[in-house]
């Protein structure tokens, strides 16, 4: 239940509702959408990326001297878990055609395509269990231009406008053109899409869409797709070897500069293992668990940007790592679920963001960065926010409108996961609005790729949230589920073609030594050892006592102690 002091504000929401319902029933926007000038003003004034300490110059590596998100620059200017001389590369522990780092949506797609279409064997090495991934969590849906009134080129225009025209055009084309085929491919694997009576796909609006294009599987879209992919992967144990609780900590190169595998770290036994592969795919997803600018996050436990730093040390360039996606509607109250995602489909179905007086202050379906910045502005500048008992702030998201627009029971039927999350705290979202505030959601940029998922390094492929270029500096809802499917499949295809031809030379970790030298030359002083692998949520006093145990400094937010002891070899 909401605390007593919010009752007055809730009453105002009820008072203004009939007029707002009227507006929603009419065709046309319920609030004037912003033009280009207004968008710029709200972004520059209120988006967290534009705060002065949000970015800093990175001093080493392929993006040297560029301004990046501060936490990303910190992550990149860090030490490896390994030193090259510690690792024996003469006899790799495992060998395979394709090493896939990350068992989320992109990784599983790649493994399936590599196997089915190209007869390639793969190892999927993943941090937690397969499917412990952002892909499991998407609720709202996947964009694909399948309806009669829509087209792939219209999807292209929406995506590139949402990304402020900075997206790499060939990537957007691949995304939007492959979209319908992906829908069909998934359906044939057994994904149960929401449908209309006549069998056509049910489509909804999302932020920044000019046609209803969001396909869904109730509000378990990600879980439905991910579980189908995982089940199919597990149907082929002879071709796809899944290694769980075995995150990669460093890429392995060969002396000719090809990427040739990775070093894995067993979270169970704390052993390191080497994998030699003809081609390597980074499909490690995003970085929400770095808690950039102290924000709560919607992301899964293992989303710590590991792929970025591994690829960076090996020499791959990053793109648009100066922009962070804050989802406009994260939960602000109750505190136990603070940061959890409230799917954008709630706004797609008619939910409206309101200030404490129950008034609309923004068009509900602006692109995400605009919508988030407008909510922050309403709280920070206009005093329109509602403070929570734990010191957060939020605005209302008026969900009861949805049943009024679509009929009783609609919310229950279409948003069962959302309903469940709130009802535990006595909040029935069909009757009461939700209190929301932007939450750290998505890594807009990443390792730069082309439409074949290739990077600067031959043999290194990247797909999904870990990649950069596709979304420009702002991804639209529904385009990343499509992203991990389209580019996961493309990576499977192109990495397989490459793997068939390549001859791997002598394995090497020399890039780690060069990177250390570069750090020293740039005068970087840091205790941070990355990849981070898992965040720590132990309270401060516990962490201090943990520090006493290790004879080394606790590396930043990383939980696993620095194990770089002299004489400790693989």
């Amino acid at each position: 239940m909401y605390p007593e002091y919010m009752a007055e504000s809730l009453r105002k929401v009820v008072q203004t509702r009939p007029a707002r319902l009227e507006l929603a029933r009419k065709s046309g926007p319920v609030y004037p959408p912003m033009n280009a000038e207004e968008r710029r003003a709200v972004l520059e004034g209120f988006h967290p990326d534009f705060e002065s300490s949000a970015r800093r110059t990175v001093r080493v590596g392929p993006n040297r001297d560029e301004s990046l998100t501060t936490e990303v620059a910190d992550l990149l200017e860090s030490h490896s878990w390994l030193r090259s001389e510690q690792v024996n590369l003469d006899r790799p522990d495992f060998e395979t055609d394709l090493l896939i780092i990350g068992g989320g949506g992109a990784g599983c797609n790649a493994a399936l395509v590599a196997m089915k279409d190209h007869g390639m064997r793969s190892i999927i090495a993943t941090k937690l269990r397969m499917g412990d991934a952002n892909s499991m969590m998407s609720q709202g849906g996947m964009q694909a231009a399948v309806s009669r009134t829509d087209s792939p080129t219209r999807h292209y225009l929406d995506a590139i406008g949402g990304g402020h025209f900075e997206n790499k055009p060939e990537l957007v084309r691949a995304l939007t053109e492959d979209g319908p085929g992906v829908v069909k491919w998934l359906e044939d694997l057994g994904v149960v899409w929401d449908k209309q009576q006549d069998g056509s796909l049910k489509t909804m609006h999302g932020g920044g869409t000019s046609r209803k294009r969001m396909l869904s599987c109730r509000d378990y879209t990600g879980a439905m797709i991910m579980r189908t992919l995982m089940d199919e992967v597990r149907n082929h144990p002879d071709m796809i070897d899944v290694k769980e609780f075995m995150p990669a900590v460093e890429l392995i190169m060969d002396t000719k500069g090809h990427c040739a595998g990775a070093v894995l770290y067993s979270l169970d036994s704390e052993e390191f293992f080497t994998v030699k592969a003809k081609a390597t795919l980074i499909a490690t997803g995003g970085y929400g668990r770095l808690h950039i600018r102290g924000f709560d996050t919607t992301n899964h436990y293992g989303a710590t940007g590991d792929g970025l730093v591994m690829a960076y040390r090996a020499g791959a360039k990053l793109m648009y790592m100066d922009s962070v996606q804050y989802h406009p509607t994260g939960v602000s109250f109750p505190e136990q679920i603070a940061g959890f995602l409230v799917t954008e489909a709630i706004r797609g179905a008619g939910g409206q963001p309101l200030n404490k007086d129950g008034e609309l202050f923004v068009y509900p379906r602006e692109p995400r960065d605009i919508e988030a910045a407008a909510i922050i502005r309403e709280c920070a500048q206009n005093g329109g926010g509602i403070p929570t008992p734990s010191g957060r702030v939020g605005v209302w998201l008026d969900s009861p409108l949805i049943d009024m627009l679509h009929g009783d029971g609609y919310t229950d039927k279409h948003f069962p996961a959302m309903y469940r999350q709130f009802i535990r705290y006595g909040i029935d979202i069909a009757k009461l609005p939700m209190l929301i505030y932007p939450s750290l959601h998505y890594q807009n940029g990443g390792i730069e790729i082309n439409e074949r998922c290739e990077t600067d390094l031959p043999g290194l492929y990247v797909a999904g949230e870990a990649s950069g270029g596709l979304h420009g500096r702002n991804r639209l809802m529904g385009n990343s589920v499509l992203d991990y499917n389209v580019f996961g499949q493309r990576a499977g295809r192109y990495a397989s073609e490459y793997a068939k031809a390549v001859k791997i030379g002598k394995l090497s970790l020399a890039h780690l030594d060069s990177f250390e030298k570069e750090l020293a030359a740039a005068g970087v002083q840091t205790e941070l050892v990355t990849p981070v692998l898992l965040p720590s949520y132990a309270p401060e006093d516990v962490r201090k006592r943990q520090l006493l145990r290790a004879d080394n400094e606790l590396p930043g937010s990383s939980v696993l102690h620095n194990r770089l002891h002299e004489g400790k070899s693989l």
Partner: protein
Amino acid sequence: MARAPTEAKERLITVYIMGKACEVPAEATIMGAIEYAGHQIIRGAGCREGYCGACATIYRLPGDYKIRAGLACMTLVEEGMTLAQIPYVPAEKAIYDIEKLKPNVSAIQQLYPSVFRCVACGTCTRSCPQGLQVMDYVQAAKRGDIAEVMDLSFDCVVCGMCMLRCPAEITQPLVGILAKRLYGRYLRKDSPELAARVKAVEEGAYDAEYAELMTMSRKDLSDRYYARDTE
């Protein structure tokens, strides 16, 4: 916004994590409490938002004989609660080729024959943290009603609590996944427009438009974008 520094004024209660007494915030989730006590969870946390089923937990409350099941990321602690996480429930997934199955009882008989051992005790339904009618979908599986299994197991997060407690040792969530795939593959109504769109793309129907959009100046593209109509 920042995670609020509220520790100072928090009310603490005692819970027993695998038997060991720990003082934890009264308002915490089980997952929050385990971490507050200083554990680094490795097995037993995934999505942290109620989707992945990694965090299944069994617990008892003081003075109550009942064993309860919950998702650690979604369930709040209570005074005197004694708990253990069950991060994995052994179960054998059947290996199959979806193209060689029929969407009826034969698939169930072939792959998960244990379903027919159900004694309709309802324990699975009572242990499901998602509140699903698990027994009903097992019954539907026995009848070969794939659509019903799909519908009733749709929101299953595969936490494994039902199969852990089932006296007939049935692997309910695996049956649910099979049924969903069979439904999607065979029992769906086909979308005529989807097939047409896929074909149009293959035939290059959009090539010219793409070529135009991809060579436009940023200004022209921007004008086109802001002038586009919305459905």
